[in-house]
């Protein structure tokens, strides 16, 4: 970095013809450059020295000149090119002015050294990228198997069960009957709907008074529970039919048989 600084002291403000021509050539396709660092790297090549020995002050000068020329030619430059120009102007002043110990921040030499490092690093990355791309590459220089064989994926499923699972399953089976959901036991129930249905079919023939007991369905007379249910529903059905005006009901005495007959519809 001392070299940079020494070089800069001997720099004249005049730029050589060759430099100028190089800079002009750059302007032609400024779009082809990838940012200020790229341009700086290209400009640095005109110094024809090792990047480590480059004069940053010269380079800054070249860059500023390049920006000026671009402006004269009314080439629109992206903001970062102008930011770099401003920064290089600052750097230039730092490099040229004697060191002011009261001033804060890094010295001009430090800043210049870092810029040199950045350029060298970018250059190194570009060379490495080129070396990488020049390697023997798969699909171009070296080749993989042309007929790869499919690897069949075989899924082996093993089933497991523990003794506890087995016992629980068995216990579940053997106790299932006890957990039958609650339902009405309807074996001995003759519903009113059933009785009504039965009687509607029969009352057409009840021209004379008939005991409603004779309307009990077959097989419901023997078992007391069944008889009870059938009697109740038949009685309820008779009342319903009387309400509808289809039959007449009479009972001669308490607990006497209940008779019904068809009511003539006049």
């Amino acid at each position, binding site marked *: 970095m001392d070299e940079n600084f020494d070089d800069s002291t001997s720099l004249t403000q005049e730029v050589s013809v060759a430099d100028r021509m190089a800079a002009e050539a750059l302007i032609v396709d400024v779009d082809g450059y990838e940012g200020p660092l790229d341009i700086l790297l290209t400009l640095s090549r005109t110094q024809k020295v090792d990047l480590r020995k480059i004069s940053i002050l010269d380079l800054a000068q070249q860059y500023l000149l390049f920006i000026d020329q671009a402006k004269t030619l009314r080439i629109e430059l992206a903001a970062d090119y102008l930011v770099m120009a401003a920064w290089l102007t600052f750097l230039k002043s730092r490099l040229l002015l004697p060191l002011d110990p009261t001033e804060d921040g890094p010295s001009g030499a430090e800043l210049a050294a870092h810029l040199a490092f950045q350029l060298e690093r970018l250059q190194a990355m570009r060379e490495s990228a080129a070396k990488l791309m020049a390697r023997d590459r798969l699909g171009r220089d070296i080749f993989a198997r042309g007929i790869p064989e499919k690897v069949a994926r075989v899924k082996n499923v*093993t*089933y497991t069960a523990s*003794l506890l*699972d087995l*016992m629980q*399953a068995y216990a579940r089976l053997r106790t*299932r009957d006890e957990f039958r959901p609650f339902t009405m036991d309807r074996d001995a129930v003759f519903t009113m709907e059933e009785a009504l249905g039965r009687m509607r079919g029969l009352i057409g023939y009840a021209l004379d008074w008939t005991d409603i007991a004779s309307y009990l369905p077959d097989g419901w007379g023997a078992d007391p529970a069944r008889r009870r249910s059938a009697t109740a529903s038949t009685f309820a059905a008779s009342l319903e039919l009387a309400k509808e005006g289809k039959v007449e009901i009479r009972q001669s005495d308490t607990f006497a048989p209940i008779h019904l007959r068809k009511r003539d519809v006049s």
Partner: protein
Amino acid sequence: MTEPDFPQEESLFEAPPIAEQERMVEAILFASAEPVPVRELNSRMPHGCDAAEALVHLRKRYEGRGVHVVKVGDAWALRTAADLSFLMKKETIETRKLSRAAIETLAIIAYHQPVSRAEIEEIRGVSVSRGTLDQLLEMEWIRFGRRRMSPGRPITFIVTEGFLDHFGLENARDLPGLKELRSAGLLDNRPPPGAEALADSEDSDDEDQSEMFEE
């Protein structure tokens, strides 16, 4: 990337040595997406090469190896040795819990063996699918037992040694009885009334396990 830029008619250049030709055939067969006919090998290799001869050498070199040089119609290809085809499988082992239907069926067979399919269905209250029994047979946890001497002579199922091994049982009689299941808290209810009736339905001539549940 260098090109074999000697033209066909030029015989100034000698054909590469046969070992080199063998390498070439090897690389072409390896990288080609399909079997390669000899004439294509020759057209791709430098002038003066004899692919057919190189193939003879290459074929010999791969004898007994994991890969063979094989003829497919008029063309040549490299193929995995047939005895190593088992390597072309990637095995994954997945452990799954036995389905509820299977574990119940298995439990019934274990506790009631020998037991017919109809009996299993009667105990489970639902039909037993063929797949469930097949699965248990395939796992070698159950096998066919003797035929019943009853009408229709139904086949029965019994559990296997493999079953006993898996569940750490000496024999099926070691299975905990209903009483033990109850005292273990697996059965909190009084024995269902049908339990004894079912035991009675077992054939008397068969050595069955109904007595296990006698309390």
